């Protein structure tokens, strides 16, 4: 009896001391040239893409082009490479949790796809390191691909002015609309609204059609970051303010935020939108399916929607008549000229990229693979016959002619785009904004929702010092 108590006590003490090893080890200088001359190399790539499912074309490009071609190239130099692709097809938040846990334990793939907005928090947590630290020497800085990637896009995968990864493209937000429904409602095929009121009027005209939801503007917490990026933020920059301004203040309970929430109220309480859809757990996927089935008139989304969702052959919710029936228009500011920088039209750009796992066993080879994936040939191969805004200017120039949406976004939309702040606290601000839109959709007044949003923001930021309000 006495012995077992002692044993338990000893075990607990041991366990407790083991638990004291919380947090990452202080940065041990990993030799970036380790295994540089290895002739048997194994690498892993991971992305939130799966053949036949989410982001299918990226998955198929990796499995059918990148891996075989790279293995062949390396074989010519006498190096045997095996590459594995870890696919996944889950919500972005779940994918983020998984790779955060992987990187934290030093496991996971060698090349990891991440969203640009996560770079700040991952870097702060020590999960990723600047490319030059992981690879060492001048290899990274001397890569010729950087000249082809413009600064704003590079900034998406940078933090504190250091490059953490290679961007995998950029994007822009537009209003997609169903031309067939527009014709039914007597609206023009080349519709381009110039104010929020124009959009609302088009919605009211569509209200007359049976079984059709006029407008889908993402709202609520179930849709996660999709609410913020394809809903609240494009509207916010249309009122003339960014979520984190140059004055280093976050938008709190300001007139701009109240205007944004006011538009939500107008859409979701007068029958122009479907409030229930915003609350369902699979609401976003359902909205895609409904648009593809011709049951939604106007939907704000990024070009991802065009090329990966309603794409007629490989999309998640394929729309066979996409090229004939789907039109696109720039997102208008609240009034002409009321957007940031005095713009009449606005957009938000995001995009992700690929980083190197600092715990990779083959840093040199992993960088070679990463550079290969971002080379001009590989990028052209990914685009194929489709439409995609790549990160490289040279590829963009070549393929601009292929798809009208791509050239539209590259020429008209991206120059107008604003970006999300790469600050570690942004995801919590985004969540508070999503909650505010959910409150309005479920019947709370914009003023009350904005006040609650202000309180949530104060809790996140630890005080009202960095928050603008009026």
């Amino acid at each position, binding site marked *: 009896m*006495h*012995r077992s108590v002692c044993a338990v006590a000893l*075990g*607990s003490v041991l*366990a*407790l001391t*083991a*638990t*004291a090893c*919380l*947090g*990452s080890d202080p940065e041990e200088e990993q030799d970036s040239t380790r295994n540089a001359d290895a002739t048997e190399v194994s690498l892993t790539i991971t992305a939130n893409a799966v053949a036949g499912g989410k982001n299918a074309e990226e998955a198929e490009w990796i499995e059918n082009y990148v891996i075989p071609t790279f293995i062949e190239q390396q074989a010519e130099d006498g190096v045997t490479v095996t590459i594995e692709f870890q696919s996944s097809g889950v919500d972005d*938040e*779940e994918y983020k*949790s998984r790779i*955060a*846990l992987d990187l*934290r334990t030093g496991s996971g793939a060698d090349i990891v796809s991440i969203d640009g907005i*996560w770079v700040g*928090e*991952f870097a*702060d*947590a*020590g*999960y990723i390191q600047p490319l030059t630290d992981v690879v060492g020497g001048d290899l990274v800085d001397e890569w010729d691909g950087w000249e082809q990637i413009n600064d704003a896009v590079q900034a998406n995968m940078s933090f504190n002015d250091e490059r953490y990864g290679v961007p995998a493209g950029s994007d822009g937000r537009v209003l997609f609309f169903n031309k067939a429904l527009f014709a039914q409602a007597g609206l023009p095929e080349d519709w381009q609204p110039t104010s929020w009121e124009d959009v609302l009027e088009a919605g009211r005209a569509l209200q007359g059609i049976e079984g059709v939801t006029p407008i889908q503007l993402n709202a*609520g*917490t*179930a849709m996660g970051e999709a609410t913020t990026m394809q809903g609240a933020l494009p509207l916010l920059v249309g009122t003339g303010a960014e979520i984190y301004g140059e004055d280093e203040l976050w938008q709190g309970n300001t007139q701009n935020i109240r205007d944004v929430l006011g538009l939500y109220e107008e859409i979701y309480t007068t029958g122009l939108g479907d409030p*229930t859809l915003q*609350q*369902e*757990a699979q609401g976003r996927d359902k909205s895609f399916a409904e648009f593809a089935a011709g049951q939604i008139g106007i939907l704000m989304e990024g070009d991802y929607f065009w090329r990966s969702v309603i794409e007629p052959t490989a999309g998640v919710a394929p729309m066979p008549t996409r090229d004939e029936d789907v039109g696109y228009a720039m997102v208008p500011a609240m009034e002409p000229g009321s957007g940031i920088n005095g713009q009449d039209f606005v957009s938000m750009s995001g995009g992700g990229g690929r980083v190197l796992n600092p715990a990779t066993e083959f840093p040199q080879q992993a960088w070679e693979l990463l550079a290969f994936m971002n080379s001009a040939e590989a990028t052209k191969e990914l685009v194929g016959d489709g439409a995609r805004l790549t990160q490289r200017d040279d590829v963009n120039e070549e393929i601009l002619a292929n798809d009208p949406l791509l050239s539209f976004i590259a020429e008209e939309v991206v120059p107008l785009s604003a970006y999300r702040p790469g600050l*570690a*606290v942004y*995801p*919590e601000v985004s*969540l508070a904004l999503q909650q505010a839109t*959910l409150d309005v959709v*479920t019947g709370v007044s914009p003023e009350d929702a904005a006040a609650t949003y202000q309180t949530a923001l104060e809790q996140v930021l630890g005080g009202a010092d960095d928050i603008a309000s009026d």
Partner: protein
Amino acid sequence: MAQTTSPATEAAPDEPDESASGGGTRDPADGGETDVVGLGKWRASAFVAPAMVLVAVFLVFPALWTLYIGVTNYRLTGVAARTPEFVGLDNYTQALGDANFLNSLYLTLVFVLFSAVIGQNGLGFALAWRLQDARGWVKRLVESLVLLAWILPSSIVAFLWIALLDRDSGTLNALLGTPGLAWLIEYPMASIIIFNIWRGTAFSMLLYSAALASVPPSQLETARLVGASRWQTLRDIVFPHVRGHVLTNTLLISLWTFNDFTPFLITAGGPNGRTEILPVYIYNTAITGGEMGYGAAVSLIMLVINLIIAMFYLRLLRERK
């Protein structure tokens, strides 16, 4: 193996070496033998050690780990992931003052009360009682169906229920002729309560079947002869015998339901947090929100609540006896 014998005792002279080993006191009441098999404490410990290691690694260590990170501001990402700071009881005070936590606690208690204490108990007992006298094939069929609901994997079951309750093409709406009624949005708690009753009744049914079989048939015969009604038989003969079983069953299913994460697969915390029971709340804040220190503190609070519930039942159990 060092053989040390305490001066107060003496090894039985004709024992084989092994059983006298171990170092330490030997209980005189043992009668001189440490164990029947002749292993001795060291070898016995060696046998138990692998299991103990597993328990330590997978139960004890995570528990202590949770205690530890509960007093820090540890996060999954961000600066606090690299250098977490000790914050003392801040996480606990924050939890107890957080409206979302209190709402979650309230929802969990409602969930446990209606789906476990009343629902599964009641339905399980009713099924066991009715099936007592049922014909063989009826009994087997019903038991199989009820068991099937219990043993199917959670993700599959969740998907079936989502398909059942879907607003546009769900089976329930088709049966009732109410197209467009979003059950999971308008009646979220009711949906998950009924789901959980359907899911977990099997255990109560099996337990009560066994319990009812232990009621002396002679007493039931006497009651029948005397002309007692079914309800009187239940109240005066059956319940006194199965009281202990009722309490045990209620304790078990209360604790299991309190910690059940499956509703997340159906409603993900419900429209605007209306089905955010504690396990879902912890998942949302700790994994999706990244606040692991806070999540650990809430987990400990949950454990304490579980202990209180368990102690309450055990006290009742002791009183009845």
